[in-house]
């Protein structure tokens, strides 16, 4: 009898056992429903031109004109029927055209929004910003009360509910009201700034993963 004649089979059995018994080396491919989080935003431009002391602007816009939720979802590979949550995550602003007046700033700025019968709800309050230089995106402080954010979230969910169709304009039209004092006093303003409303969205996708 050949010495160690049984060993080749033993080694083979060991190797195959290691490969399959522990699973760690041979992943099983399983489907997973993963909840993604993606972001989107819409930007509104404000031109402050000629205001001397008090900036006061009211405007009505259809949010869907600058916010393409369907496209955001398509880019992320999320089917509209699989969106699970949508909410406002924050507001940012930037100066895109600087005021030629050195030291130009807006102080005690407030922005309210109104939708349908909600009445004016404060989105940003006590907002101060320099406007004599172009800036990058900066965080705007949300009003601690959060009522405007709640209304915006309700609007976003109205949009989500109607997808893939567009909701009726009365659901997506908001009136915003911007106020603030312009300094230095007595000198007309001439600057442009943008406000970005950031949205966060979750939705499910099915993926195959090795486990």
């Amino acid at each position: 009898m050949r010495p160690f004649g049984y060993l080749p089979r033993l080694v083979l059995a060991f190797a195959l056992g290691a490969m399959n018994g522990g699973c760690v080396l041979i992943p099983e491919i399983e489907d997973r429903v993963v909840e993604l989080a993606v972001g989107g935003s819409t930007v509104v431009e404000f031109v402050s031109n000629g205001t001397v002391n008090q900036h006061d602007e009211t405007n009505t816009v259809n949010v869907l004109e600058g916010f393409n939720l369907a496209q955001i979802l398509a880019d992320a590979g999320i089917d509209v029927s699989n969106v699970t949550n949508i909410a406002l995550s924050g507001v940012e602003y930037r100066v895109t055209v600087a005021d030629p007046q050195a030291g130009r700033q807006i102080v005690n700025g407030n922005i309210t929004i109104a939708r349908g019968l909600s009445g004016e709800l404060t989105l940003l309050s006590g907002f101060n910003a320099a406007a004599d230089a172009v800036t990058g995106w900066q965080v705007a402080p949300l009003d601690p009360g959060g009522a405007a954010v709640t209304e915006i979230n309700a609007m976003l969910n109205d949009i989500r509910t109607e997808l893939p169709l567009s909701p009726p304009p009365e659901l997506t039209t908001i009136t915003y009201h911007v106020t603030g004092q312009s300094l230095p006093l007595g000198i007309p303003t001439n600057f442009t700034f943008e406000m970005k409303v950031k949205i966060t969205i979750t939705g499910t996708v099915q993926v195959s993963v090795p486990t």
Partner: protein
Amino acid sequence: MRRWIVVTLALALLGLTAAAPAGAQLSENLGALTGDNARKYLGPLPDALSGTMNSAIFTSGKVPKVGLNFSVGVKLMGVKFADEDRLYAPTDPPGFTSVPPIEPAPTVVGSTTAVTQNGQGGATVFYPGGFDIGEFAFAAPQLTIGSVMGTRAVVRWFGMDFASENFIDKISFFGIGAQHSLSQHVPTLPIDLALGVFYQSFKINDSLLETKAFHVDVTGSRSFVFLQPYAAIGFDTFKMDAAYEDAGNPGSNISVDFDRTSNRHLTAGLLAHLAFATLHAEGNIAATNGVAVGLSFGRQ
């Protein structure tokens, strides 16, 4: 039996390629995270990749002094994730101040359910779910060719383009190194001993995930008929970087640099020269402890 081995290896390679659809969603998940949180979300990956990529490279201390010898085969390395790898404590994104309760979020290997964190002023941030992965396996084709002055070269490679299947664009993997016989210089040694060095680069979509691994070890082995137990003591370094598009600022990218990690690497294994192939199985104590097996053809 032979066919069964081939099927098993094919399934293992499938595991690597099947990760691709998940990879596409990985890109989307990162887009919603700040750099800090992306680093935490991907936190379990560097050790898992280091523990697998740096394993099963050198499986013998016996390097012929001269002559043509080569082998080609596949190495499979696997590690398990620990429970603590599944969650992380997110850092508030700029401009967002979380309010209690503060929720931990799943890492890339954690729960598939996204987490909602409420913030001041009614703002909300969602942290994406993970892929619920308990184990991680890495497969690598490997070619060994020698020998010149007791030195042989080792190469690993893998590349695949997924563009036409709408998966991630591309995976590319390349490794190169050499092993030099030390025992040829000390003929009285009771075992075969060799010094090995190996460098590897692994990329997903060129820069979505980019890793560089370096491994050096001294491997000792001794032959008993067709069996060859081996052990190695080594050192690994691993560097991983990620880059992805910021979903909140389309067109701008976020780069995440992970710290370079260094770990000692201990290996014990058994290699068997069979009639038609060479098999080996080993255990590794490294960045993450794991096991590896390999099947190769040719003669080392």
